[in-house]
């Protein structure tokens, strides 16, 4: 129920953001639409921690800003490779342990890895990721450790 309510509120906020009209009719329709969507979400069995991540801490934006910095750095690194005269790659597929407890955490972690250019999550298995890295530098183990820690700080269980 909380999930449903939470989703409803979030969706209605989305509606307002999209709409920008505050006519009675549109608000009513918007509310109904959101209700309908929640109904459908229930039918689809979507109402769980994953679809409605109420459990995440509010430190998420902080994490994102950190991540933004990381992305910038690694993007810069990859750009240098692209622009270098001889492209020198040392591609590798490495296994990365994921210390996280929830699927949501896993996903945030995995996506963060992908988001940072130079590394891509290739396959997800319980507790582990297979990551493709472009260079040795990107494959450095400490980078992942730092990231995992920060993701863990966001997720709760």
């Amino acid at each position, binding site marked *: 129920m909380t999930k449903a309510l939470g*989703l409803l509120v979030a*969706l209605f906020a*989305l*509606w307002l953001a*999209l*709409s920008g*009209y505050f006519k009675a009719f*549109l608000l009513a*329709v*918007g509310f109904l*639409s*959101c209700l*309908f*969507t*929640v109904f*459908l*979400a229930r*039918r*689809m069995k*979507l109402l*769980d921690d*994953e*679809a409605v*991540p109420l459990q995440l801490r509010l430190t998420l934006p902080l994490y994102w800003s950190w991540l933004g910095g990381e992305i910038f750095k690694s993007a810069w690194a990859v750009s240098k490779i692209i622009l270098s005269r001889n492209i020198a790659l040392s591609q590798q597929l490495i296994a990365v342990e994921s210390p996280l407890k929830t*699927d*949501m955490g*896993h*996903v945030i972690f*995995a*996506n963060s890895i992908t988001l940072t250019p130079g590394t891509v*999550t290739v396959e*997800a298995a319980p507790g582990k990721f297979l990551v493709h890295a472009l260079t040795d530098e990107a494959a450095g183990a400490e980078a992942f450790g730092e990231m995992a820690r920060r993701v863990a700080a966001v997720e709760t269980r």
Partner: protein
Amino acid sequence: MEHHSILRVVSKLLIPPMLVYALYVQFHGEYSPGGGFQAGVVFAAAFVLYSLVHGIDALTRVAPPRVLHALAGLGVLIFAGTGVVTMALGDAYLGYYALAEHPQHAQEWGIVVVEFGVGMTVASVMLSLFIAFASHTRKLDDKDW
């Protein structure tokens, strides 16, 4: 792809906003680009995403084909029926002015209802098409023929 946690989570996150977005497009057709058809397509796309991640059987549980077919027909009937109603009220076919006292409201009402019919039909048709194609598995192989 059930086991595929990343996709599953992302799709779950994405589907409700997509649906709301579709409905937004549906009901703001008068104010911004969009309308029934586009909304229907996006709406269907959300379901398609669901089916891609959770499998077609899950989709048919949520949206049984029979219901979809009925809804597709219903959408047409809503549109065409609006015309019949205005006709019965003494205006021409699809002459919305008969729907309300205030002419502009009447038109707006008419458009909303009609677009709703369009959206309903398009969404359910697109989804039915997807289901029809996806669940029509191969019958015979080359050598068997």
